[in-house]
């Protein structure tokens, strides 16, 4: 195949604009083309502002993790994190300040989590973190550590001008051994994030681990209805 007839202009421009060093190798040779493709893949999976994984790539990672959990039975946690009152930052200090805040939060998250975790920016001021092989007991600890570290940060938005930022975090574990769907998993984590927001922000809410124990209250209700039914029935039979 004659690769010199391929159009690389836009691709190379895009890479240059993003500050990517062009691949080594003889131009239009196989090594060089592979380098360009890899660089484009890399670019299309990252969020330009923070360098984190972007939403598209995150969704692929999430569905891979659902597959993995279904096969291995390992415990995996999904956290969603949202910057509190972010709109006020943009409104009061401008979008430039907003961008600085987002970048600062991204840096803190990257410092707190393990290298194997996937940190993504999934929306304007919303982040998501996939934590594979995270045992049930550690979930709350990790989430709380994230919240504390971000809250302890003072973000410099202009020379000598600092902002205190807080975040709300929601989280849910993937059901082990079971092939769930990425969508349901995300919804469950999101629901906990809403709860954290509704309960006053600057807090973490994790979905309760599935608890199969039947409480006394549940048993009470089970048997109360059974008794009511039996009494009603015996009364009915008595009148017949």
């Amino acid at each position, binding site marked *: 195949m004659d690769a010199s007839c391929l159009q690389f202009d836009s691709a190379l421009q895009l890479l240059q604009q993003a500050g990517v060093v062009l691949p080594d190798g003889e131009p239009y040779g196989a090594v060089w083309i592979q380098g360009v493709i890899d660089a484009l893949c890399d670019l299309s999976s990252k969020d330009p502002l923070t360098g984190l994984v972007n939403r598209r790539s995150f969704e692929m990672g999430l569905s891979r993790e659902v597959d993995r959990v279904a096969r291995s039975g390992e415990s995996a946690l999904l956290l969603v994190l949202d910057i509190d009152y972010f709109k006020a930052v943009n409104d009061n200090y401008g979008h430039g300040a907003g961008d600085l805040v987002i970048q600062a939060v991204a840096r803190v998250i990257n410092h707190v989590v393990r290298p194997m975790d996937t940190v993504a920016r999934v929306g304007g001021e919303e982040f998501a973190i996939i934590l594979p092989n995270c045992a049930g007991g550690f979930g709350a600890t990790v989430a709380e550590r994230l919240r504390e570290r971000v809250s302890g940060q003072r973000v410099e938005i202009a020379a000598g001008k600092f902002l205190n930022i807080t975040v709300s975090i929601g989280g849910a574990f993937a059901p082990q051994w079971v092939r769930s769907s990425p969508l349901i998993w995300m919804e469950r984590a999101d629901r906990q994030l809403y709860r954290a927001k509704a309960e006053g922000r600057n807090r973490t809410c994790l979905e309760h681990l599935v608890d199969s124990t039947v*409480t006394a209250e549940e048993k009470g209700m089970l048997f109360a209805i059974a008794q009511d039914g039996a009494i009603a*029935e015996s009364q009915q039979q008595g009148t017949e």
Partner: protein
Amino acid sequence: MSTTAAAPQQQGRPPRAGARTLAVTSGKGGVGKTFVTANLAAALAAHGNKVLVLDADLGLANLDVVLNLHPKLTLHEVFTGKCTLEQAILPAPGGFSVLLAGSGMVEYSRLTPDIRDKLLQILEEVKPHFDWVLLDTGAGISDVVLFAISLAADVLVVATPEPTSLTDAYATIKVLCTQQERRHVGLLVNQANRVGEGRLICSQLQQVLQRFVGAIPGQAFKLELLGEVKSDPVVRQAVLKRQLMLEHFPGSDAAQAIKALANKLIG
């Protein structure tokens, strides 16, 4: 570092081919789960369906006991490569096929990725050859049981009116609803003391579930009463003689109830 383009990974479940899959389970043991499964298989087969019952109670199997079979080839032999899958699929009285498991095999009491993969593979292999695959699972909510249930598209929980059975059935349904994200579970009330008791039990379970488990918004959870088998002396007789009730007491109330269950499932 260069990342070579990986082959696109297959995502999600493959489209369901062949058999309808139904897991029969119970919270508590000894409520008639295997008995119901075997007779239901016979009732489905009587409609001209090709039916396979897979004994998914790997550690404590007793489908062979209920059916009075003395198998030499079981899932264990398939797992260990001592026989082929085809060889282990045996004909059972009642016109259906069975894939039995050995009893008391400690190595199957814990779910390992190996067992998981093998069961998944076996199910995918048998599905194209049958109209129905019934999975007779163990009781309770262990890894193995929950996994076996997760293999099936539909679930039938068997319970008796006894408080302990109800409590355990409730716990099972709760786990299926929360952990497996199931939105529909079928219920069969066995050994009912009077007509209508099944309906009562189903609605009470549903009420408690609604109160304590809650549903994912927009996805209502439904516990559906699929059958009610009244206490029937012929059932005990059939069990003791290790006979299929549907063959030996086809006119009994219990046999009629199982046939009604099959009709409801066929739809």
